[in-house]
C-alpha cells in the first residue's frame, strides 16, 4: 500500500486563485522527497493539503489507503498528529522557553485542562528533553526562544514536530531564512531524522544544490502542476530553465 497518495488534487482559493491543478503524487514510506518550483507555484499549498491545514477543492488524498480529503473534527486532529510540520518562519512562541515550545508538539495527546495549566505529564517532559538532545539543544531547554539564532529556532521547531512521534515530516522552505552554513546544519538534522527514525520527509526547497545533496527524489511544480518527477541528478539545464523560467540562473549553496 502506498504511504501517501494524492489523486488529481485541485485547490482553488475563494479569491479565484488556482493554486494546484490536477496534482497526482505517490510517496513511499521512508522517502526524502524534495518539492521545488518558483514562489507561488503551489509548493506551500501542496504541503498544507497533505496535513489538511487546507482542504482540497477536488481530488483525493489517501494516507495509508485511508481517504483523508474531507475529514473533520477529532478525526482530522488524530490525522494531523501523525504528521509533523516545520516552517520557513519557524512559527514558535518567541516569549516562551525552548522546552515550553517543544511541549506544544505533544498537545494532541495531553488532556486540554492539563495543557492549559501547563501541567504536562513527567514522561512527556522527559521525551521533550530527549528530542532536544536529538537536535543538539539539550542545554538550551530553559532559555527563552527569542535569545536563540535562526538555526537554533528551526531546531526547536523540529524538536516540537518530533514530539508528535510523526510518521511523516513536512518542511515548508525550512532553510529559506537561514544562512548557508546553518542551512546545512538544519538539513542534516532532517536527514538524520529521515534515516535513523525512519520518518518520511517531504520538503520544499529553493536551492537545487541542497536538493541534490539531501533528496532522493524531486517533484517540480510550475503554476500548480507537477512538471517534473525524478532523481535530483536528472534535472538538466533544460529542465531547470523550464521549471524556473528562462531568466533563471542556478545559484550554488555550499
Amino acid at each position, binding site marked *: 500500500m502506498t504511504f501517501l497518495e494524492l489523486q488529481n488534487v485541485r485547490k482553488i482559493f475563494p479569491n479565484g486563485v488556482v493554486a494546484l491543478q490536477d496534482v497526482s503524487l505517490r510517496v513511499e514510506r521512508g522517502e526524502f522527497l524534495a518539492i521545488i518550483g518558483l514562489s507561488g507555484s503551489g509548493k506551500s499549498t501542496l504541503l498544507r493539503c497533505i496535513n489538511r491545514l487546507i482542504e482540497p477543492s477536488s481530488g483525493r488524498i489517501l494516507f495509508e489507503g485511508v481517504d483523508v480529503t474531507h475529514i473533520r473534527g477529532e478525526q482530522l486532529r488524530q490525522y494531523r*498528529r501523525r504528521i509533523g510540520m516545520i516552517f520557513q518562519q519557524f512559527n514558535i512562541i518567541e*516569549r516562551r522557553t525552548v522546552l515550553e515550545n517543544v511541549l*506544544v508538539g505533544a498537545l494532541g495527546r495531553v488532556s486540554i485542562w492539563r*495543557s492549559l495549566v501547563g501541567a504536562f505529564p513527567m514522561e512527556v517532559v522527559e521525551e521533550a528533553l530527549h528530542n532536544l538532545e536529538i537536535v543538539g539543544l539539550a542545554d538550551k531547554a530553559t532559555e527563552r526562544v527569542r535569545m536563540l539564532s535562526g538555526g537554533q529556532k528551526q531546531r526547536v521547531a523540529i524538536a516540537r514536530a518530533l514530539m508528535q512521534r510523526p510518521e511523516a515530516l513536512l518542511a515548508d522552505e525550512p532553510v529559506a531564512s537561514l544562512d548557508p552554513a546553518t542551512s546545512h546544519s538544519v538539513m542534516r538534522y532532517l536527514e538524520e531524522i529521515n534515516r535513523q527514525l525512519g520518518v518520511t520527509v517531504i520538503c520544499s526547497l529553493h536551492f537545487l544544490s541542497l536538493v541534490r545533496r539531501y533528496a532522493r527524489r524531486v517533484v517540480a511544480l510550475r503554476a500548480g502542476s507537477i512538471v517534473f518527477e525524478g532523481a535530483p541528478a536528472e534535472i538538466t539545464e533544460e529542465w531547470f530553465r523550464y521549471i524556473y523560467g528562462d531568466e533563471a540562473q542556478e545559484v550554488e549553496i555550499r
Partner: protein
Amino acid sequence: MSRRWQSVLLDFGIGLYGAVLLYRIVWVHMVQDGEAPPVTPPELGFYAVAGLIVVGLGLYLRCTLGAWIRWRQELKQWQRICALHWGLTLLVLTIWAGWVITKVSPLDLLSAEGLRSAGRLFGALLSPEFSILDKALAAMVQTIYIALMATLFGLPPAVVLGFLAARNIMRGHPLTFAFYAFLRVLINFTRSVEPLIWAVVFSVWVGIGPFAGMLAMTVHTVAALTKLYSEQVESIDSGLVEAVESTGAHPVQVVWFGVVPQVVLPFLAFTIYRWDTNVRMATVIGVVGGGGIGTLLMQYQGLARWHEVGLIVLVIAAVVWIMDYLSARLREAIA
C-alpha cells in the same frame, strides 16, 4: 459603489448643501435677518433642483468636485481649477454658517463686564482654598476607585468578547460568524453611547451615586476594551496558529498556545491605558451625579465658591497628570 455613482452623489450633495446654506443662512438669516421659517415642499424642490444642476454641470462640463474624483488626470486645467473653487466656496460658506449657527460673538467675549467677572473667577481659581484639601482628596480617592473597579469588572467580559469579536477566530463556521457580526454591532452601539448617558441610565436604575457611575463606566469599558482586544487578536501572525493546528491540537489549545501568547502584553497595555482613561472619565461622570470628585466639584460650583473649585481643579489636574505619567511608564516597561 462605483466611482461614477460616487461622483454623481457627491455633486448632488454639494448642490443641495450649497443651496441650503445659501438660502437658510445667507438669505433668511443675514439678508432678511429673520427667524428661519419652517421647511416647505417648494423649498425642498429648489434644493433638489440645485443638486441636479450641479450633477449636470459635473457630467457635461466636468468642472465639479464629483467630476474631479471621477476623471482626475483626464480633466483640463480650467476644469480642475473650477472644481477647486467649488471646494473653496463650500468651505467659506460652511465657516460662515457655523459662525451664525453657534452664535459666535466677539463682542460678548471682549465686553468689559464679562472680562471683569472672568478676572474675578480666575483670581479665585488661582488662590485655591486649601482647608478642604482632605475632603477633595477623599473624593479623588473615590474617583480613582470608581475607575479601578470599572476597569477590573470590565476586564473579564472584555477578554472573552475580544476573542469572540475577532474575525479570524470566528470565521470558521457560519453560525459563529453570525454571532461575530451580531457582537460587532452590539459593541459598536454600546461604545457609541457616551458613558455620560450610561450614567444617566444607571442613576435611574440604582440611584444617583458612585455605584451608578461605576456601572456606567464598566459598560463603556467592556465595549472599548473588546474593540481594542479584538483588533489585536485579528492582527496576530497566523503562522504560529497554523503550527499549533498542525500538531493536531484541540481548537481551545490552538487559541491558548497559538493566539494568547501573541496578545497577552498588548492586552495588558490596553488595560492600563483604559484605567488611566477611566480616571479622567470618572471625574466627568461625577459631574452628573456619579460620585467622587466630580460631584464635589458640582456642589461647590453651584454655590459659586470658586476658591474651593480652584482647589478641586488643582487636585484633578495633579492626579490626571500622575496617572498619565504612570500609565505611559508602565506600558513602556512591558512593551
